[in-house]
């Protein structure tokens, strides 16, 4: 079979999708908002489904989640993983219950849990896809999260692309230098097993390399006043001074509150 360059579903594509998601390069409604309001909005949407057992209300909240995902322009990788997870769950549970003598009724009974999880997951996707590292870190700082957590989040994002690159290099080295399996076996299980082994062992050099590299980082943090800032709150105040809410923030928040209340009201009337 001739090899070609794939633009989707390749390692390179996964890498790009991770970056697009982490750095919210697709734009979307929530990425234009104040990060604190986005977090508040997220709290609202993530908590709302837990106060009801009505399938109708949950269906509406699920629909609300779907709308937010569309507004936030969530990318195909994250969305795909979500769908696989959700559908896999539904199909799996249904198959299990069918084997033990259940029928379509079981599916309805399971709908409540799946709708709930789906609504919460979609709100999470919409919110975190829209927050770039800097915004998320500032918002966490504003909500009085520990300094180290806020910094860690932003540093993690900064390291992500570099670690992904390094992982790809190491993994390619693994593939080139380990002998390919001689007989693939049934459904190529030996190939899959080798692939998985190499994918896991590729983490070992990266961890050692990173441990070595961060020595400079720790020293540099010292010279750039990181520990100084922990003891002196002036820096925090300056950093957060740039956070501003605008009309859009309040409109989105109010509309969301109204929509959630409406879902509770109308959902009960739905014949589900």
């Amino acid at each position, binding site marked *: 079979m*001739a*090899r*070609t*360059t794939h*633009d989707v579903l390749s390692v*390179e*594509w996964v890498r*790009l999708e991770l*970056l*697009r998601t982490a*750095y919210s*390069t697709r734009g979307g409604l929530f990425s234009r908002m104040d990060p604190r309001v986005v977090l508040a909005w997220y709290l609202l949407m993530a908590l709302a489904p837990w106060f009801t057992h009505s399938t109708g209300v949950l269906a509406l909240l699920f629909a609300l989640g779907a709308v937010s995902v569309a507004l936030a322009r969530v990318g195909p990788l994250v969305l795909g993983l979500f769908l696989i997870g959700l559908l896999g769950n539904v199909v799996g549970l249904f198959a299990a219950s069918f084997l033990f003598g259940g029928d379509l009724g079981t599916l309805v009974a399971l709908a409540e849990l799946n709708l709930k999880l789906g609504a919460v997951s979609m709100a999470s996707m919409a919110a975190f896809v829209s927050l*770039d*590292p*800097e915004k998320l870190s500032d918002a966490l700082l504003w909500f009085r999260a520990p300094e180290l957590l806020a*910094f860690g989040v*932003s*540093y993690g*994002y*900064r390291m992500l*692309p*570099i670690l992904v690159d*390094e992982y790809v*290099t*190491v993994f*390619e*080295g693994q*593939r*080139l*230098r*380990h*002998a*390919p399996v001689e007989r693939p076996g049934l459904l190529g299980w030996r190939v899959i097993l080798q692939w998985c082994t190499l994918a896991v*062992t590729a983490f*070992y*050099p990266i961890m*050692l*390399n990173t441990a*070595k*590299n*961060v020595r*400079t*980082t720790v*020293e*540099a*943090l*010292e*010279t*750039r*006043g*990181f*520990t*100084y*800032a922990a003891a*002196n709150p*002036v*820096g925090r*105040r*300056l*950093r957060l001074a740039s956070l501003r809410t605008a009309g859009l923030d309040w409109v989105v928040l109010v509309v969301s509150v109204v929509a959630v209340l409406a879902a509770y009201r109308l959902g009960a009337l739905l014949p589900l």
Partner: protein
Amino acid sequence: MTALPPTLAVPAPAAPSADAAPPAIVVKDLSFRYPGTDRDALRNVDLTIERGDFVAVVGGNGSAKTTLCKTFNGLVPHYWNGDFAGVVHVDGVDTWDSSVAELSSRVGYVYQDFQNQLVRPTVREEVAFGPLNFGHADHRERTEEALAALGIAHLADRFVWQLSGGQAHLVALAAVLALRPEVIVVDEPVAELDPARAREIYLRLRELNTRHGITVVTIEHHAEFVADFARSVVLMADGAPVWHLPVQEAMDRHGDLRAHGIPAPDAVALTAAVGAERVALDVPSAVTVLREHLRPAAERSGPSAPVPGPAPEPAPAEVVASLRGVSHGYRGVDGSLSTVLDDLSLELRAGERVALVGTNGAGKSTLMRLLTGLIVPRAGTVAVDGIDTRTRSASLLADHVSYLDQHPQRMFLKDTVREDVALFPRGRKVPDAEAIVDRILTEVGLTELAGRDGRTLSGGQQRRSTLGIGLAMRPRLLLLDEPTSSLDIRSRDDVTAMLAALAETVRCAVVATHDMDLVAAWATRVIVLDQGRVLADAAPQALFARREITGRARLTPPQAARIALELGLDPLPLTATALREHLRTVGPDPTQEH
């Protein structure tokens, strides 16, 4: 080449206006020992650095250059606690009574591995990080000012992982500058950058020094940069300065420098060879001096200087790899397709030593990855050993071609060097794999260190380990990405010599590099890539003689070649040793003594 004023005209250390000001840094009777060691790293150091000076700290590996510079911003003794005796005054402040935080606004420090110094996702945030932490209300002005001073305002909204090495270094520098320090310490800018990029950093440092009056201290192995940019030189050996002299006097003592593992730049070595009273520090002044000592052309073609005649046209050797009409590109984060290689056709033949040169993004790495079969082109065909890379997986192609990554530590998959070298032959059940591994470890001079983890070795040893890994794959085609980057001169010469010895084992070797000294010393064929196309394909001698090509591809030929070009020599000598043949010299060639 940049138009620099002849260095002879550069004022002596410490600009006259600074005479009245107190020195920037005074070190008195300083000794320091790292915890857990039984030897002093620094021993009785006495050193004064004047305000407004541009100091180069030079010295061999382990001469404690970095430790000395870490005393300036208080990392020693406040971060690295150890036995500390003596006094360091920075700007009149005793560092013992101060703190790293306080001293950091006086002394900025840019690390050798500056990439690890960047901690924020975007450039603007990175530069503002220090001022924000220290609670400077004018952090915005400081950020803009630092970015503007280094000419990188256009990068402000980039993510740090999008930056090239040179840009990342400037960002690290800007982040330090935003604290408005009076002294900036830069640890080996050339180590992780190619020479052209490093020169840009030095030009910026010179501007900060002359225009903004900032005292600059650099740790440097490459004497060429020292001669070109420094005002004074500190030679360190064994934890103490041997001397601290104005740059002209320092270069006049090139014998001392060489004795401490710092070979003199070609301009210095050549003008010294013709017996000049004061050695020349840069190309223009060297040319002025050397022109008077040129031998007449007739005298040169004697037996001592054999001029290679036009080689008889040999029968073309067997093709090891070929590319036909190859185009390739990558998707960006925004989904657009950027073209990296554009309708490229090449043939690599047995016995060739190919250097692949060009600016970052010219397509060197992509070309190499195509040859390994890790990726296949969007259009055209790549064949290695007659095998179309589309028809075989990369792991099967690894029997024919091996690729050595630019970062040696990414190639250490096992916990000892020996295991790493043995991985490929053992896995492929090569008969007498162990004997091969033993032989290769001897060849790369690592038998003693074979039991160590590659990560714990020095830069030069790491490169040699990766060479060993590559050789153990016994490829027909060996690809090396930047094999001499981040090496000091001595390890670089080691690696270059080892590459030259490869010829017997490998049919064809391709090196992607920015290092023109390596190109001059090793390559038989240079392929210049520019915007995805072949700009030139020639022997090094022919290439370096063509200014329009070197200018366009931003290549800086070795200093000896630049001098020879100015002198109008033809054929062009590429190394100082070759150029000496054209000169009336006094005394033997000192570089040949070792």
